[in-house]
């Protein structure tokens, strides 16, 4: 009795057609194509020897030490930066949700980091972190926090955190905006009801604000995790994976494998491992936060 294409299905089809057309037309071919490449041993400098190797490119990863180093670096970078982004943007969005003088100015200032192209951002931080004449050393020295110029990016224990800082600095505005949008959707009578029920500030936050922010929170979590795991530009411009392999993250590893080593097959295989992890994380977040996107 049910029709496959009732009015609802037809409406849905029409509404989804543009987005599906764009993604099918532009994104699907590249995805399938690079997936296809991941089953071949491709070295561009040997254009005539590109055998089909099945899963070898994937299996080889298990014995590739540098690959695992890069996984560890990626995990460190992602966990640190996503946690920082979430914490800061949560606080900032709560702050901006208050009514106070200067809020407009503050929120406009806040958007500035977002507005800087990544390349400019990376160059700016490179300039700030420079151990010779950088602004960070300058200000710390003038404020007497340090008595001689420090090594920043060149210190392998600090590198990844400094890069994370540059990343966080740039990503907080977007995360804040997304959280703010979800905060705006909380009806104020919910707060009043909670207040009547005797809930204190903290309880109101836990029981009213946080649950209502969940969808926005999830969106930020997924988006920023995806961005952090796959982030590339800062590593490229600030360190190229160095010093040693202190910032040799997975995305940089893939870049090196693909464009420096010209091994398109294994580069694609690594990309798909990364994609799988990203998808699994997103899926878990969606599920564990108990809501479909």
């Amino acid at each position, binding site marked *: 009795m049910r029709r496959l294409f009732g009015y609802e299905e037809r409406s849905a089809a029409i*509404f989804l057609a543009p987005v599906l057309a764009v993604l099918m037309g532009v994104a699907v071919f590249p995805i399938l194509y690079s997936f296809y490449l991941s089953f071949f041993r491709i070295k561009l400098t040997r254009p005539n020897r590109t055998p089909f190797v099945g899963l070898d490119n994937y299996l080889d990863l298990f014995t590739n030490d540098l690959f695992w180093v890069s996984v560890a670096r990626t995990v460190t970078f992602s966990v640190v930066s996503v946690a920082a982004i979430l914490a800061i943007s949560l606080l900032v969005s709560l702050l901006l949700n*208050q009514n106070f003088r200067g809020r407009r100015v503050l929120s406009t200032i806040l958007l500035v980091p977002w507005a800087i192209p990544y390349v400019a951002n990376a160059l700016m931080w490179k300039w700030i972190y420079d151990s010779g004449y950088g602004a960070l050393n300058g200000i710390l020295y003038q404020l007497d926090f340090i008595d001689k110029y420090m090594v920043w990016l060149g210190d392998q224990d600090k590198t990844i955190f400094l890069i994370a800082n540059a990343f966080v600095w740039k990503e907080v505005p977007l995360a804040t905006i997304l959280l703010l*949008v979800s905060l705006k959707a909380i009806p104020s009578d919910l707060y009043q009801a909670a207040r009547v029920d005797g809930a204190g500030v903290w309880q109101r936050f836990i029981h009213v604000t946080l649950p209502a922010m969940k969808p926005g929170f999830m969106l930020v979590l997924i988006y920023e995790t995806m961005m952090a795991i796959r982030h590339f530009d800062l590593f490229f411009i600030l360190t190229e994976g160095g010093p040693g392999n202190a910032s040799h993250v997975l995305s940089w590893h893939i870049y090196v494998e693909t464009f420096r080593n010209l091994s398109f097959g294994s580069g694609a295989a690594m990309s798909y491992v990364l994609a799988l992890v990203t998808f699994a994380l997103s899926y878990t977040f969606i599920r564990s936060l108990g809501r479909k996107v």
Partner: protein
Amino acid sequence: MSDVPSSSTQVVDYRRRQRLARIAQRLIIFGGSILLAVYVIAPVTWLVSSSVQTEAEIVSVPPHWIPEEPTLRNFKAIFSATEEETVTYETRSGQDPAAGGFIPSTASSLLPAMANSLTVATLVVILNLLVAVPAAYSLAKIRTWGRNATVYFILITRVIPDIALVVPFFLVIRKLGMLDTIGSLVLTYLAVTVPFSVFILLQYFEGLPDELDKAARVDGCSRFQALIRVFLPLSLPSLVAVVLFTFLTSWNEFLLALMFTQTEASQTLPILLAAFTSDFTISFSFINAAGVLAIIPPVIVAIIFERYIVSGLTAGAVKG
């Protein structure tokens, strides 16, 4: 205090506690704002300050926070773009040091590149809205088979690292005959931004009551009319979030632009910025000046739109 009845003490205490709480709240807001502003603005201030320093001053140790001999030469170089079509031996920028020639010869391409970036970003924003809004509405409010599959399909298109997609993207663009055109960037940026635009709108639409949708349809709206007449006016904050997100993503994007563009006809701002760092003559102060200019258009866009998010013109009333 001892002669004050205990009940009255309590009243006084309450009032004082409330006042203290309010003062504490103000202090927290004030302190938080200052801290945040400093964290955000300090690097940018340095960027601005160094953009008006000379190349020699910029490497001072310790840095000169306030330029001792401020100069607008970098900005002049950018804005004094010659109108001439063809560069000849005579009109080439000879890069004679005496004439401040360390400014990259491509300085005059910066404004055209900004124009390209602006065009690309604007088109991507418009197309995103056209494409993502109906999709998000459909996924949020129309319950049909294939809905979940569509959500995951959209998500999957964004989990693969761009690096892996660069070459196949290039093949698509070449086959479409769009190499070195703005169109190539519009198309690919649309494909990389639209999934998240859909998700931003989707989570917002899902927050709007189902009954609103039902009411509209019983009132005689087709699905399309319900979207246009009822949902769109209510989604301003999320629409603004999408506008900002897509505009800035397009404005910032580097890798694809690097691959698809090669001449002034299509090169975007980030490409020019990167190019400045690798010419024979490199001026950090000039690069910083270019960075400062790069911030201005998005900040203007943000200023235009942010109040719709921050003050939430309509959203508060939705569920009330």
